[in-house]
């Protein structure tokens, strides 16, 4: 019975597809996968917005939304209705075609990125041989959508926001890819399904996930920081810094197009969290050996996804926004060298014999530079009493 429950979506899909003539079957199968992905993640989007608003309210010692439904949990429905019936305003000087295409160009690549993640046992929508490359390739498309939105609005704030966003996304894409390269080196495959399979099994009590190795832990932390920056979330939310450039590249968007931007941002966060789970957190594998088989595999995937979302919300509620120079310094002087050193550590891990030496050498190789680089970043700061140049 647990097996049936585990494979229920796969069986359901096969059952529905079998009702169609053979010529239509690939098409129907693809359509089913697409609608399942869109439905699941649209629902997750609604849940994530309400959780984020409630969580931030909790952190900031206020209630958060509490009017619609019990404890305000139907707030996303009300928001969605409001977005749909709002007027769609296009600025007079805007480039209408590009302005219209930008939100679509943002959401479509992100939805494509969902198609290579393995959500459960036998539950990868497309099993691509170069799945990780596909994920990063479609992720590159979102930068252009950001530029299209910022440029076509004919607004200096939106152009500034777009330039900031592109600069930030390009800078943090490098550590993002470099930190995931370690996993690809160790598993020897670019297929997400293979990477999840490589993390099956348990070492004593611990699951054999990549995050429980020195290089994996460093890679996971680097990946998560870069992912926060890549999805433009606090503390890296300068592209939409409300206090300086109002809302960044989507300032001139309203109504449903704004909702698409909002959705694209959350979808990007889900996709990159899903990749983090696939690469480092064992995909759909259960965290403890006696849980294996007790619950369906996709439950574990989405439980981990909610865990990472909670971490993102917590970070947003806790950390102040960085300045532009701090952001770039952090990317190029800390993240990039750390990611390169981490690749070296992963290579050593591959060739050293299994044992305590391997753990010690790799941990030192990761931890030493971490301390040195961190001190290097902090050393140049001369803390002084604050002087006010203009406001005295």
């Amino acid at each position: 019975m647990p097996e049936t429950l585990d494979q229920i979506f796969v069986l359901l899909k096969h059952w529905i597809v079998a009702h169609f003539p053979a010529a239509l079957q690939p098409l129907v199968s693809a359509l089913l996968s697409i609608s399942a992905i869109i439905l699941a993640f649209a629902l997750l989007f609604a849940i994530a917005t309400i959780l984020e608003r409630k969580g931030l309210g909790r952190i900031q010692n206020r209630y958060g939304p509490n009017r619609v439904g019990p404890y305000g949990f139907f707030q996303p429905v009300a928001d969605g209705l409001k977005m749909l019936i709002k007027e769609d305003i296009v600025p007079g000087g805007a480039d209408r075609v590009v302005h219209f295409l930008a939100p679509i160009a943002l959401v479509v690549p992100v939805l494509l990125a969902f198609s290579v993640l393995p959500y459960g046992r036998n539950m990868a929508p497309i099993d691509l041989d170069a799945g990780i490359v596909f994920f990063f390739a479609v992720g590159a498309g979102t930068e252009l959508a950001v530029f299209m939105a910022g440029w076509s609005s004919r607004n200096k704030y939106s152009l500034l926001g777009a330039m900031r966003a592109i600069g930030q996304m390009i800078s943090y894409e490098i550590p993002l890819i470099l930190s995931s390269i370690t996993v690809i080196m160790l598993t020897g495959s670019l297929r997400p399904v293979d990477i999840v399979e490589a993390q099956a099994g348990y070492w004593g009590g611990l699951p054999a996930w990549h995050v429980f190795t020195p290089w994996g832990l460093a890679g996971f932390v680097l990946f998560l920081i870069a992912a926060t920056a890549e999805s433009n979330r606090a503390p890296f939310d300068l592209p939409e810094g409300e206090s300086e450039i109002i809302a960044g590249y989507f300032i001139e968007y309203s109504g449903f197009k704004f909702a698409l931007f909002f959705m694209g941002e959350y979808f990007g966060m889900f996709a990159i969290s899903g990749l983090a789970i696939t690469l480092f957190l064992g995909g759909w594998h259960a965290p403890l050996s006696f849980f294996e088989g007790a619950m369906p595999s996709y439950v574990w995937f989405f439980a981990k996804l909610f865990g990472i979302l909670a971490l993102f919300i917590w970070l947003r509620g806790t950390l102040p926004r960085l300045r532009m120079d701090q952001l770039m310094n952090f990317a190029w002087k800390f993240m990039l060298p750390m990611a390169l050193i981490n690749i070296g550590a992963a290579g050593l891990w591959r060739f050293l014999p299994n044992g305590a030496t391997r753990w010690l050498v790799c941990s030192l190789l990761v931890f030493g530079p971490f301390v040195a680089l961190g001190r290097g970043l902090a050393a140049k700061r001369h803390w002084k009493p604050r002087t006010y140049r203009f406001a005295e």
Partner: protein
Amino acid sequence: MDPVFCILALVTAASAIAAVSLRRLVHCALCLVVTFVGLAALYLQLNAQFVGFAQILVYVGAVAILIVFAILLTRGSDSPPQSIFSSSWVVGVGVAVLAFGALAFSVWTSSVIYRPAPPAPQPTVRELGEQLMTQYVLPLEVIGLLLTAALIGAVIIAMREGPARHKSESIAHRPLPIPHPK
């Protein structure tokens, strides 16, 4: 004829024409992106999965962004007041049409093209990587060196900033130093 190929070829060729003929430079760059994506889809049609993804990763993710930044840095985002075509455009179009005629004629009269396609190969990424690390390791290293050199060179060329030129100007305006009598 294959309808998928027809659609892709039409989109690619039309966006390529738009990319070199539109008035606003940003529109040209965006049309160029459509061409790149169309080419990547054609590579996928030809069973070259990895190259298709690499094409999108490099061209859409890097080259297009570079072009867009260059357009903004050279204030090219407004449409120019004068004609966008150079004074000798007739000659240019003539040369291009002649070149296309010659290429199409030689393709059409060649005998190799009617050979049937061999069974579809599925090169895995692992095989590609193994070849890159064994047979083609020297070209790979050379490409790495070239990219590093290009990176540093591009930074140096683009960095030759105002202050350096101001310095040379101020040197030019200064009276010549009188040589020391020895």
